[in-house]
C-alpha cells in the first residue's frame, strides 16, 4: 500500500505530486535534453562561478599557465577518484589507497635504485598495489564486515610496510618516470603543452566511463550497490564481483603511484597522504552516492575539477591555506545535502 502512495505515475502529470522547481522549464526542452538531470551539474556551475569571480578580482588568474597548474595538481587525485567511484557505486570504498599508492611508488623506486629496467620496475609497482587490492577484495567479500574497517586496517598495515621498506627515507630519483610525467607535452597540436599527466588521467577517465557503462562487471557494481539482496537473487555472483572490483582498484592505485612518483620525482610513504579521504570527497561532491547504486566517471570528474579550482582560487584570494580545508569541508557538506535533496 505505502509503495503506491509514494510512487508518482509518470504518464499522468495531473496525478503526480508537486513537481520539483524547474520541472516546467524542463518539459519544454527537446526530448534528449529533458532526460538530463540538470541538478547533477551543480559542481560545474559553482566552478564556473568561482572562476569568473576570481578572474575579475585578480588579473593573473585567468591564464593558461594557471589552469595547467590546476590540472597537474589534481590529475593523480583524479585517477584514484575514478577507482573510488567504481567502489562507491558498488557500496564499497577503499581507505587504503593513500598508503597503497605509496607502496606502488616505493616498490618501483627501490627497484629503479637497483638499476632494474623501467618496465620491470613499473610492472612490479603496479603488481604490488594490485595484490593489496585483491586482498582487500577477498577480505571484504568473505567477511560481512564493512569495507570501511577492512580497508582501514589495510591502510594501517601498509603504513607500517611502507616505512619499513624505505626506512623512512624517500627514494629521490624516479628516472624514466620523472621523464615521462614530470614535464609537459609538446606545445602544439594536439597536446598544446599540457602537463604530461593529462594523458594517463584522460585514459583512466575514459576507461572508467566505458567500464561503468558497457562492461558487465560495471553493471553488476551498480546492481550490488543499489540493492545487494536483489542482485544476489538475480544471480549476480556477489563475492567474485567484489573481488574483481577491489582488484581493479588496486591496478588504478598502481597507475596513480607511477604518475605521482614521476611527477614529483620521489617515492615515499607520505607520497599520497589524505588521498583516501580526498578521493571519496571528490566522488561524492561530483554526485556519486556515498552508499552505492548511483554515480559515474564524469560526475566524479567534475568533483575533482571543483576541488582543484577551489584550492587554487583560495591561493589567489590571498588567504592562508587553512582556508582551503575549511572551504573544502563546506563543499563536502553541501554536496551531501544536494544528494539528500535529490532523493
Amino acid at each position, binding site marked *: *500500500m505505502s*509503495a503506491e502512495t509514494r510512487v508518482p505515475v509518470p*504518464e499522468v502529470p495531473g496525478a503526480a505530486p508537486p513537481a520539483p522547481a524547474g520541472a516546467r522549464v524542463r518539459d519544454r526542452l527537446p526530448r534528449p535534453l529533458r532526460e538530463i538531470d540538470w541538478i547533477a551539474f551543480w559542481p560545474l556551475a559553482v566552478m564556473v562561478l568561482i572562476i569568473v569571480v576570481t578572474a575579475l578580482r585578480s588579473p593573473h588568474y585567468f591564464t593558461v599557465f594557471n589552469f595547467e597548474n590546476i590540472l597537474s595538481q589534481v590529475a593523480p587525485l583524479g585517477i584514484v577518484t575514478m577507482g573510488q567511484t567504481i567502489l562507491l557505486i558498488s557500496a564499497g570504498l577503499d581507505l587504503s589507497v593513500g598508503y597503497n599508492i605509496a607502496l606502488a611508488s616505493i616498490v618501483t623506486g627501490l627497484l629503479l635504485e637497483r638499476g632494474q629496467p623501467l618496465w620491470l620496475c613499473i610492472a612490479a609497482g603496479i603488481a604490488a598495489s594490485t595484490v593489496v587490492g585483491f586482498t582487500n577484495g577477498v577480505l571484504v567479500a568473505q567477511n560481512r564486515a564493512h569495507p570501511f574497517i577492512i580497508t582501514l586496517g589495510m591502510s594501517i598495515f601498509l603504513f607500517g610496510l611502507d616505512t619499513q621498506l624505505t626506512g623512512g627515507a624517500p627514494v629521490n630519483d624516479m628516472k624514466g618516470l620523472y621523464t615521462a610525467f614530470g614535464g609537459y607535452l609538446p606545445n602544439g597540436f594536439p597536446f598544446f603543452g599540457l602537463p604530461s599527466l593529462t594523458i594517463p588521467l584522460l585514459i583512466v577517465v575514459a576507461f572508467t566511463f566505458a567500464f561503468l557503462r558497457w*562492461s558487465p562487471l560495471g553493471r553488476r557494481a551498480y*546492481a550490488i550497490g543499489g540493492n545487494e539482496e536483489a542482485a544476489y537473487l538475480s*544471480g549476480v555472483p556477489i563475492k567474485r564481483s567484489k573481488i574483481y572490483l577491489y582488484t581493479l582498484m588496486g591496478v588504478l592505485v598502481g597507475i596513480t603511484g607511477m604518475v605521482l612518483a614521476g611527477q614529483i620525482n620521489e617515492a615515499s610513504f607520505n607520497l599520497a597522504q589524505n588521498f583516501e579521504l580526498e578521493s571519496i570527497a571528490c566522488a561524492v561532491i561530483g554526485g556519486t552516492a556515498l552508499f552505492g*547504486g548511483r554515480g559515474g566517471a564524469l560526475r566524479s570528474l567534475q568533483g575533482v575539477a571543483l576541488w582543484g579550482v577551489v584550492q587554487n582560487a583560495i591561493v589567489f584570494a590571498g588567504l592562508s591555506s587553512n582556508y582551503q580545508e575549511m572551504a573544502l569541508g563546506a563543499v563536502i557538506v553541501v554536496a551531501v545535502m544536494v544528494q539528500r535533496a535529490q532523493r
Partner: protein
Amino acid sequence: MTETQQPLLAVENVDKHFPGVQALKSVSLTLVAGEVHGLVGQNGAGKSTLVKCISGVYAPDGGCIVLDGEPIGTYSPKHAVDLGIAVVHQRAQLLPWLSVAENVMLGHFPTRVRGIIDRHRANQLTRELLERFRLEIDPEVKVTQLATPERQQVAIAKALYGRAKLLILDEPTAALDAARAERLFALVEDLQRHDVGVLYVSHHLEEVFRLADRITVLRDGELVATRPTCELDQSEVVTLMAGRRLEAPPRAPAKAAGNGKAEAIVLEAVSTDVLHDVALAVHAGEVVGITGVIGAGGHEIARLLFGLDRPRTGRLLLGGNAYAPRGPLQAIDRGLFTVPEDAAGEGLVPWLSVAANITLVDLPAITRAGLLSLGRERAFARRFVDRLAIAARSPDTPVRTLSGGNQQKVLLAKALAAEAGVLVLEEPTQGVDVHAKAEIHRIVRALAAEGKAVIVISTDIRDLLEFVDRVVALRDGQVVEDVAAAETSYAELLDLTVGAVKAVAS
C-alpha cells in the same frame, strides 16, 4: 459485566483509504479493561491496518479512536505509547546488545542524583516485573543470548513496564513451539487478572477461542461481527471470515493436473526446521498454488527451490534430475527462477532502469565481445515491457518511479528473461490494485500455456483460486491438502489452513 463498564478502547466508525483500496470501512470495536478480544480475518481483511490505526502508525481518514473516554487527538506511535497502548509484533523489537533490564527500562531508567543510571535498581525492578509474570529470565543477560520466545516475553514485559493499559499482540505464537505458546497463554490470562486489555490478533482460531472473551471478525475492511466467544464455534467463524458458506468454485474447468506432461519439479519427503515430510510435484504447463498462514512453510519451500536453504532430509528433482542448488546463480542456470515477495526490497534495484533490472538476470544475452550492447538491451527489455504492458515511459526509466503493480510486472519480466522452465512467485499480487491483479493472473496463465511450470505461493486464498490449476494447503509445515482448484473452495481451504485441528489429524 462488559456492557456496563466504560470501555477502555472504543474504535468508532474508523475509515482508512489507500490509493485504489478502502482498507477499513466504518469499523467499530470496543474493548474493556481485563478483556481479551480476538481479532480475526483473512489476509487483506484489514486487521493490520486497524492495529496500525490504534497504535498511531496511521491516522484514520474518518471516525475516531477513544481511549478511556478520551478521543486520541494526535496519531503517532510515540503518543500511543504515552497513552499506554503497546504493540508486540511477531518479531520482538528489542535492542539486541543491551541487557534485558536495559531494554525493559529504556526510556524509564531509574536514576540516582545528577541523572546517573541506577543499574542495580534497574535490574531489581526488572526482576520483580519478570517474577510477577513468572518469567524465568535473568535481567542481566544480553538480549542476543535469548531465544525468540523469550525475547517476545521481554517485549511484553517492556510494554507492561511502560504502564500499558492496552496490549496488542500481533500473531504472537507464530515463532513459538507448543510449550512456549502455553506459557504465553498463561501470561495473557494473568494480564487479564491485572485489568490489562488485550487485543489478540491471530490466524490460529484455536488460540483465539481459548483466550478471547469476545471475537471480532473483519472481512474486506468491514466489520462482520463481534460476538462473545461462547456464542460462536470455529466453523461459524470460518464462515464469517469467508463470507457466504457456499462459494461457487471460481476456477474455469481445470485441465486435469498436468495429465501426461512431464514433472518439472518434485519434492520428495523434504524436511527442514519448518517443513515436515513435504511431497509435491508440479508439471510443465501447470499453475500450482501453495497456501497456508504465515509460518506454515510456503516461504520455506520457495527458499529451498531457489537454493537459499538446503533440505535436512529428502531431495529435490528438477526435470527428473537431482537438484541441489547452492544459491540463486545455480538455480537460474538450472532453469528455475523465484520472484521474491517484496518487490522493492528484495527484487529490484531502484536506481537502475527498467531495462537494466530485467537484463540483470541474463547479462550474457546482451553482451557482445565482452561489452554490453545497450541497443540490444533496450530491444531485449522492450519485448518484455510490451508483452507485460509495463507502464513505463521507456525502458530507460528508473524502476523506483514505477507504481507497485508495475514494479511487480518488472519482476515477472525478470523471470521471463531468465528463461526459466520453473517459476516460483511469492505473493505476486500483494499490495497491487485490482486491475494489476487481473493482469498478473493473465500473465501467469499465459506462461503456463507456454509450457512453464508455475508455483504461486500466497496467503491470499481467494486470489489464488482465481488462476491456479491446483492448490496445496500447508499447515505447520505439512501438506494437509493437494487438490484441483475446481474441486475445492475458499471456505474449505480456509478451514484447512486456519480452522479446527481435525484436518491435520486425518
